[in-house]
């Protein structure tokens, strides 16, 4: 599962990717921030085109495996309503050595932001709301 409404669980992803030949583990967690462009954010709603998003994230995981010397890559993104501080996305990359783990995880989160059909709707303390300006799919 790559897109889910339930809270993301790092322990499950770590268990799933456990590899004895990988000495480098990088975890990136994107969490809900309480501000955007000077406005106080109170909560977010993420929505997705789930079939395309699942497939795109699967492709990105595979790309990380082929482009970098990594042993495992898993990415999960949460949808639905999230509170400040909750994890919206998790990237777990394991590699024999740290350089590939750092590079692979950076590639993974950048591609998720660029290519996966997920939309962030912010709700502000002043009662207004807006979709965050996005990145056009190629």
């Amino acid at each position, binding site marked *: 599962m790559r897109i889910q409404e339930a809270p993301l669980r790092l322990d499950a992803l770590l268990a799933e990717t456990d590899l004895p030949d990988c000495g480098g583990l990088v975890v990136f967690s994107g969490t809900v921030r309480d501000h955007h462009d000077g406005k106080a954010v109170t909560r977010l709603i993420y929505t997705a*085109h789930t079939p395309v998003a699942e497939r795109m994230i699967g492709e990105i995981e595979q790309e990380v495996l082929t482009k970098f010397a990594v042993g495992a890559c898993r990415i999960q*993104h949460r949808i639905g309503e999230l509170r400040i501080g909750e994890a919206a996305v998790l990237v777990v990359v394991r590699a024999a050595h740290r350089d590939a783990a750092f590079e692979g995880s950076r590639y993974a989160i950048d591609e*998720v*932001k660029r290519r996966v*059909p997920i939309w962030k709707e912010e709700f502000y303390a002043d009662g207004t709301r807006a979709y965050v300006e*996005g990145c056009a799919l190629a």
Partner: protein
Amino acid sequence: MFGPARERVGGESITVDVALPAAVAELVAALATANAGLAELLPHCAIAVGDELVPRDFVVQPGDEVAVLPPVSGGC
């Protein structure tokens, strides 16, 4: 409709009259005519049929599920 496109249309879907099979470009043109708010956004939108992103010359068949995917803002 997804994300900001859903907001422009005021719902999850929109109905337009297009004889199928038809190219995605024809559907997009019909959508733009049907809704002025959506028209501004459509040049920046990708189109998916099922779980595949498709080009504007892709031919839509009867029964296909067509999705309008505005610029994305996942991550954090």
